[in-house]
């Protein structure tokens, strides 16, 4: 198997782990997950100088995705787009402003063989609550 299928394999593992943290494939009896997370956000890069692959959401390019479905046989995946927001809750202009990720319903289908790098991010970033602003007078 060549380099291409590595991303497909990684995506399979990501799907497995994402299902575990979401409580889909594993139910806990003794652990109470107060803060439920169901997404391992990630970025994908093509072989083209590691530039992250981006898709457009409301006119803004986002490099952050969530795996929705995986077809291992043909190495294709349905990804939903995650929107980067800044500390105020507005779309983040740059990586420096990036504070959290918000789920969107926009999806794309990608051929995983086109990518050579996957960069996973913290699940805590998805739907992370906005900070408290003090003093609140």
């Amino acid at each position: 198997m060549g380099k291409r299928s590595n991303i497909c394999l990684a995506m399979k593992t990501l799907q497995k782990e994402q299902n575990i943290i979401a409580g889909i494939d594993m139910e806990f009896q003794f652990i109470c997950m107060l803060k439920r997370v169901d997404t391992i956000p990630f970025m994908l890069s093509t072989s083209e100088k590691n530039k992250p692959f981006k898709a457009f959401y409301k006119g803004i390019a986002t490099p952050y995705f969530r795996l929705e479905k995986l077809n291992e046989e043909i190495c294709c995946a349905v990804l939903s787009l995650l929107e980067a927001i800044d500390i105020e809750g507005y779309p983040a202009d740059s990586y420096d402003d990036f504070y959290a990720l918000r789920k969107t319903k926009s999806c794309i289908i990608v051929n995983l063989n086109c990518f050579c790098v996957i960069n996973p991010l913290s699940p805590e970033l998805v739907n992370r609550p906005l900070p408290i602003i003090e003093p609140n007078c």
Partner: protein
Amino acid sequence: MKTILFIETTKSGSSREAIKTAARLGYCTVLLTERNSFMEQYEEFPDVTRVIHVREITEDLIRTEIRRLQQQGNSIKAIISFVDPFVSMAAKLSNEYCDSIISVDALKKMEDKTATRKALKNNVTTPAFEIYQPTDELDTILNKGYTFPQIVKSAVSKASKDVYLVGNKVEMKKALKKIIKQYPVQKVVIEDYLDGPQYVVEVLVHNGTINIVAIFKQDITKKTKFIVTGYELQLNLEKGLYETLYKAVESILIDLGVTNATCHLEIRYVNGSWKLVEVNPRISGGAMNRMIEEAFGINLVEETIKLYLGYEPCLIRKYEKQIYAHYITINSYGNLLKVTGENLASHQPGVKEVYIKPSIGTIMIPPLSMGHRYGYVIASGNTSDEANENAVNAAKNIKFYLDPI
């Protein structure tokens, strides 16, 4: 090398300004500190010639360091501390090694709340009080038949850390247990709660002459702890009131035996008479030195240094300005992610200084002591109300972004 040895400092505020002032006056400044972080943040102390870190500051250890510094060619001109509980110890050593004439015994009494109350037992400004040993039976204390509310405080309390307002026996028991657990060998003071406006009086006594440098009315937030959230300069205190205040201050300082020292009194005006809350052997911390400087052009820490060096302090007001300092506190818990509005606040009308204390990553909490005030704005105005308004309005621009914990 003419050197001034400072015993401990805070990262900002009056004690920190004292070191800067000494450097400006041309002295080598040596700082003896227990704080590890100062060694790591040495670039933030360009005015400190040398930082000596010790695990615990003791008199013996200071003596050893003094000898070492002298052997290395330092001519130590004064040993000063603006931080509790080292003020009297530093003054004692300064008298011994540098021929200062500071009233050490009086400073020592001020450092211990029980000693202050005992020394001022017959002074009219002293409220009804009782002193307990931590070994005394709790039930005996609780069944003394107090009229609530009462104040329970540790003999070594500072910055409102161990001062509790209790409204009944249950609260009193809780407060006593907390204090005794934290300070198992320190005495506890229980005294009448004094209800009335509170003032802080900054005083410099030189050769027995009492100089009231500045009087500030304090805005206090009273929950279980007392947090001063505002200081309003009393530029035009009514003459009769000033005279009674001066007399009260004079009687306190005479009873304590102060001849040469800087100190501040926290004093309340209760039903037409002055009642002493506490007296501390130094200028107030935080923004106090800056406030006095902005109000009158007097640098009180500089004049205190002069007092230690044996020079005549100069307390002539260069001007008079209405000043208000507003302190910022928060109501939530969280990890500091970002602070905004500092620059905007500093450009608001009348603003003299904006200070933000916490750095990114600090865990911030609602105030349990004065140390949980996270910044201040000092502003001036044509009237006291205008100064207050300018400071409070400017502070509204400052926002702390907290990641909830």
